[in-house]
């Protein structure tokens, strides 16, 4: 009875117990925040990179791409394990210069994609920010019939590169173009990574709507066109005008700040990667159209490696069926997303090892801190131990007081740490923003950490582990002092100065 009574009394009356409690709470909070942010970062890293290019890719590095991609697509779509509904999509990747509204000129990665297909592969379509809800909100306000029809079509066709206004509206945006006989109404739509044009994220996570009308932004794109010899003709680069139809956010800052998306067929034509006519033996023939990449999504639960092996077989068959497909320096690669992002993922795995090491040190520090505090508590209560023993308390009973004390402090400290940790992590982006505004402290630079938000999720598994470790640490920290207290002879304790 006295053990329970004294544990509760010591907790309530001893100020040093509050320090021990504060130490456990802070250590738990600190570890929870660090672990949640780091493991959240690693999870985001995997999810985001997984979402960039689908589960499996067929690709070549060269901007000139590879031929016979339609045949590959057809065969791949028929493979067992590939997700139904056209979950395989050709992509063209090249580089280009953009001129946005005459105000921003930058080099970007240009991706030619088929947006309707892209909604089944990767997270590009999920990352489109404004188009549909924005257009739906604006539709009732439009007076012009052509505008209304265009906007309705853009809504119905979503996701697409459809422009949401009528021709006259676009002409009105660039009155000078009329004098230059440029029909700006014919310019197609383009999607830019949101960070290219300096948009910021709002507190809720959505991209801010700028003060200007996004749809009125024009973009001149000058893509790098590989010639038939493979060397780009820099003196004769095409310039294509576009109207901005949306901004995208994949979550990977490097991608969102450097990627422009246009329609696949359009880019293919611009880069002359579509079927080109040629004459052979007096007959006009066509070359095979080319693409840089085929992105494939597999069925949920399918064995990625097994599907990748089947895809590889398809590629090998086509490579063996046609001449000129195989190259020595730049073969067509079939890779799972983990293989493709291998160098990044390996770096993340290294981070994980480092994290475990740091966590180990933090845990040791926490145990040592608690040990020191309990050692002080026991030293301070040595005479009490003598008093208790003089009235018949056993050594085990005395040890149990301090172990129980450690246990209760561990449980309360762990619970408080969990609560504070949750509050900090849940609001970490707001706190970070506030620190930036008030003190110009920027800890999380998206350029460094790849993502524009600090991960703010606590995994239940991590929380259980960390709180358990806090409780065990408290009991461990109290064990040696408790054993010391138990071993003391009653007379020794009573004479303690």
């Amino acid at each position, binding site marked *: *009875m006295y053990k329970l009574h004294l544990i509760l009394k010591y907790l309530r009356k*001893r100020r040093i117990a509050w320090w021990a409690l504060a130490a456990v709470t802070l250590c738990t909070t600190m570890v929870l925040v660090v672990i949640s942010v780091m493991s959240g970062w690693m999870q985001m890293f995997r999810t985001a990179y997984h979402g960039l290019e689908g589960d499996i890719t067929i690709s070549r590095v060269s901007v000139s791409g590879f031929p016979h991609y339609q045949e590959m697509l057809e065969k791949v779509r028929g493979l067992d394990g590939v997700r139904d509904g056209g979950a395989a999509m050709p992509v063209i990747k090249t580089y280009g210069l953009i001129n946005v509204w005459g105000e921003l000129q930058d080099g970007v990665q240009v991706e030619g994609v088929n947006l309707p297909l892209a909604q089944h592969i990767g997270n590009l379509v999920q990352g489109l920010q404004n188009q549909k809800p924005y257009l739906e909100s604006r539709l009732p306000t439009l007076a012009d019939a052509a505008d209304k029809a265009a906007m309705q079509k853009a809504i119905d066709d979503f996701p697409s590169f459809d422009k949401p206004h009528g021709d006259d509206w676009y002409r009105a945006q660039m009155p000078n173009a009329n004098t230059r006989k440029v029909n700006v109404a014919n310019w197609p739509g383009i999607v830019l990574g949101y960070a290219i044009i300096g948009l910021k994220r709002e507190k809720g996570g959505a991209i801010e709507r700028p003060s200007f009308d996004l749809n009125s932004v024009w973009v001149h794109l000058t893509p790098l066109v590989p010639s038939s010899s493979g060397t780009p003709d820099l003196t004769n680069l095409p310039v294509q005008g576009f109207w901005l139809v949306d901004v995208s956010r994949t979550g990977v800052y490097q991608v969102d700040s450097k990627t422009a998306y246009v329609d696949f067929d359009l880019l293919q034509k611009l880069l002359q990667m579509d079927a080109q006519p040629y004459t052979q033996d007096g007959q006009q023939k066509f070359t095979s159209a080319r693409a840089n990449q085929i992105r494939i999504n597999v069925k949920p639960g399918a064995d990625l490696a097994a599907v990748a092996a089947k895809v590889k077989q398809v590629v090998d068959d086509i490579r063996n069926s046609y001449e000129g497909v195989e190259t020595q320096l730049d073969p067509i690669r079939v890779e799972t997303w983990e293989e493709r992002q291998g160098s990044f993922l390996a770096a993340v795995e290294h981070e994980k090892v480092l994290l475990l090491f740091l966590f180990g040190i933090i845990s040791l520090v926490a145990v040592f801190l608690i040990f020191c505090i309990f050692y002080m508590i026991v030293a301070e209560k040595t005479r009490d131990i*003598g008093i*208790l*023993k*003089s009235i*018949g308390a056993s*050594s085990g009973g005395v040890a149990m007081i301090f172990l129980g004390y450690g246990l209760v402090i561990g449980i309360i400290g762990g619970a408080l740490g969990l609560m504070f940790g949750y509050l900090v992590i849940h609001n970490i982006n707001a706190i970070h923003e506030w620190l930036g505004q008030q003190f110009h402290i920027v800890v999380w630079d998206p350029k460094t950490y790849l993502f524009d938000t600090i991960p703010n999720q606590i995994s239940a598994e991590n929380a259980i582990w960390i709180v358990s470790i806090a409780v065990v640490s408290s009991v461990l920290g109290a064990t040696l002092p408790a054993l010391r207290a138990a071993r003391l*002879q009653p*007379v020794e304790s009573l004479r303690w100065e």
Partner: protein
Amino acid sequence: MSRSDTVSPAKPARKTEVILQAQGLARRFQMGDATIDVLRHVDLALKSGEFVAIEGRSGSGKSTLLHIMGALDTCDGGSVLFDGENISTMPGWQRNQLRNESFGFIFQFYYLLPELNVLENTLLAPMVGHGVGDFMGNRGQLRQRAADLLEQLGLSHRLKHRPSHLSGGERQRVAIARALMNRPRILFADEPTGNLDNETGRQIMDVLEKLHRDQNQTIVMVTHDRGLAREADRVLVLRNGVLASAES
């Protein structure tokens, strides 16, 4: 085990019965290279209901003797028999039980737990002796006994006060109440007035004498004060590690 008997009247005792006997007790302390024989050969027979005072100068070893007889310390030679049983060779749990049920201690510096109030300090001995369920089952009776004891000692208005709010005399009376709570067969008092002024010390002595006179409480008191020692039934003097009667 039901402990309802703890609130039964004091156990009757006859002065002819020897309940505690020290035989050839020796105790030495190592101080650096030197060995100090504090107790050389101490013999003592304590009869039930007797009030014995052990007198001696500071450092003469009288507290050490009291601690050994009270199972708080061990001896290097000789033995202590309680009811004929050698407590020096008893296992730890039995010595703990003895200190809880049969012995009560009063110390010069009171030794109350500062976090507990007067009532809780008094209840500490039954708390140590009972499990949670057992204590809670008898809580009403135990609290009543503690309150009665404290009332007898003039502390009924101080039940909820913590030791830091009490005077020295009040603290010592709380310590006496705590020592008496489990109806000890022997009450060991180590310089019980050593930290008090004359008048307060006198009051504490009156309490001890009353206990001895009215309830036939067996008391062993050590003191350096010859005047106080003479109030006991028998006075022994510890000198050079050997115990002798005051007259010798």
